[in-house]
């Protein structure tokens, strides 16, 4: 992954949990103004990696550079990296404005000067009228926006966001996510690393996606590329690909699976075919598609999907708008060949 000029450059980082190696050989480059998402299951070591990058814990191997300067042995306050904890920990004894002014004051500005400079940042996160309020009187979303303002007031080269939305309900989550997009959309701003286990959050906010599985980087790339072409079954499962179907590739580079036959270059043998539900359309029978039987309907935020059975395999498909069907009905499936991705090896 190649970032813009400067920013964060982590090379060969190992993170240990006591005597056990948690993450190993982690490379991460995030340019200034770029947003990278670290995605992985709970306990994989995402937070430990962020803490080590921030200098709050030690890396057992590897290096961290910020804007081309090696900061591996530096104290946290000298790295130019701000770490934002998931709980939006504002200092409870300071007002919102004093919280935002804090990084300026500790750099030597007088209290009055720091407050003058902090006020525009407070207003940027739409908390101007609440500037004199104590953190205990703010809502969850306001707390997060204030914490974000405080982080930006420090003018960091790198901003680490550790699951910033996980403690918020859906409405507040959207509000804070919007604030992140507005505040961190600046291309000359900090390099941002966002830790999450929510794939939608990661793809919605980040320019690049790094999937951590089993202590290593399982895949890294642009979100669309990772979603469309997971490199392993583990990644496919983790990012929530709806359909992972067993198939076989013959010597003529044709893959056969429950959804039909598709061209795919590669060695012959068992494969897994991945395709998202949105790329499998269900319509009334009568065309040239494959016929499947509806075994259930699922309601999702994006709309209803059908669970259908075809050749003994279950497939999740998106019904066409005009389609009305019930469990037991027959439907016809249509798949865009370009949406099919083939991974060597089979789950079976």
């Amino acid at each position, binding site marked *: 992954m190649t970032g813009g000029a400067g920013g964060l450059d982590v090379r060969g980082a190992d993170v240990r949990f006591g005597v056990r190696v948690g993450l190993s050989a982690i490379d991460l480059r995030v340019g200034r103004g770029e947003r990278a998402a670290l995605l992985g299951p709970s306990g994989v070591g995402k937070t430990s990696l962020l803490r080590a990058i*921030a*200098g*709050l814990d030690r890396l057992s191997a590897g290096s961290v550079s910020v804007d081309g300067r090696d900061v591996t042995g530096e*104290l*946290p*306050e000298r*790295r130019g*990296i*701000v*770490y*934002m*904890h998931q*709980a939006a*920990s504002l*200092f*409870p*004894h300071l007002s919102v404005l004093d919280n935002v002014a*804090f*990084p300026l*004051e*500790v*750099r030597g500005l007088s209290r009055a000067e720091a407050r003058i400079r902090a006020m525009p940042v407070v207003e940027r996160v739409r908390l101007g009228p609440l500037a004199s309020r104590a953190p205990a009187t703010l809502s969850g979303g306001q707390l997060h926006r204030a914490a974000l303002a*405080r*982080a930006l007031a*420090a003018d960091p080269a790198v901003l680490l966001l550790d699951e910033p939305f996980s403690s918020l309900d859906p409405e507040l989550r959207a509000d804070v996510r919007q604030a992140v997009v507005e505040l961190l959309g600046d291309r000359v701003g900090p390099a941002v690393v966002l830790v999450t286990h929510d794939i939608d959050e990661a793809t919605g906010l980040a320019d690049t996606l790094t999937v951590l599985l089993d202590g290593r980087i399982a895949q890294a790339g642009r979100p669309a590329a990772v979603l469309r072409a997971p490199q392993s079954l583990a990644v496919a499962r983790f990012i929530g690909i709806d359909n992972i179907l067993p198939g076989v590739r013959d010597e003529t580079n044709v893959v056969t699976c429950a959804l039909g036959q598709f061209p795919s270059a590669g060695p012959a043998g068992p494969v897994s075919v991945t395709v998202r539900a949105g790329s499998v359309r269900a319509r009334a029978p009568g065309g040239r598609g494959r016929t499947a039987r509806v075994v259930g309907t699922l309601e999702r935020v994006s709309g209803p999907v059908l669970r259908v059975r075809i050749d003994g395999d279950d497939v999740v498909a998106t019904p066409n708008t005009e389609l009305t069907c019930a469990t037991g009905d027959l439907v016809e499936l249509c798949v865009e060949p370009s949406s099919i991705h083939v991974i060597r090896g089979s789950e079976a």
Partner: protein
Amino acid sequence: MTRHRQRWWLAGVALWTLVPIAALVVRALARAWRYPQILPGAGDAWPMFGAAATGRLTEALMTSLVLAMAIGPASAVIGFTIGRAIARAPRPARRVGLALALFLVIAPPTALGVGLQVATLAIGVGGTLFGVFLAHLVPAAGYLTLFAVGIFTTFDFVLEEEARTLGARPWQVWSRITIPILRRRLAEAVVLGALVSWGQVALTLLIGGGVVRTLPVELLSFVRSGSDQLGALAALAVSVPPMLAIGLLQVGIRRTGATL
């Protein structure tokens, strides 16, 4: 519990607390008060204290105050530093730390005093105010270590970590974040440390060797020599300052609005 019964309980507790204090006040003001008199006679009121006795009490009061005012902050600093380290330590080290702090609190002062006597004599401070200060510091720091472990077990260290990454150096984190957040607890700790020193008799006698005379030591001396009236006066002098300290602490907490 009904409100009526609550009132009776409160009255009982008040009586239990106030009767000994009232008896002390009466005894301090009466020249003589002997059995079977329920109260001293009118002719026995308004005692005449000797200048020597008053001087001894004043001197002892000053010694106790100096010790308490030194022990309070010193033990708070030691207790909070060690307590914080114990609270953040891994479990085995934490248990050892807690056990050691607990030992200083539960060990009888006479037993602790014998060891401390040997130590203070060895470093040449036996029989001095400084030696007594060091001796009082041991149980006071023990109490405040346990007190601080309780505080730091629930303290949100993320605040300190975020402050560091926002650019604050360790001393700025202490002065701008940790101490202001814990100011109420620190004030309580200073008072608690001072009170531990204020009530010490055994350690003062063993380490001070009769040269360093605090209020409790003088109180004991008056009672043993049969000077009941002076003993009562000394007992009042020992009892009132702690109550004043607690009262002032409460007022301070209310005024500053310290919450933690």
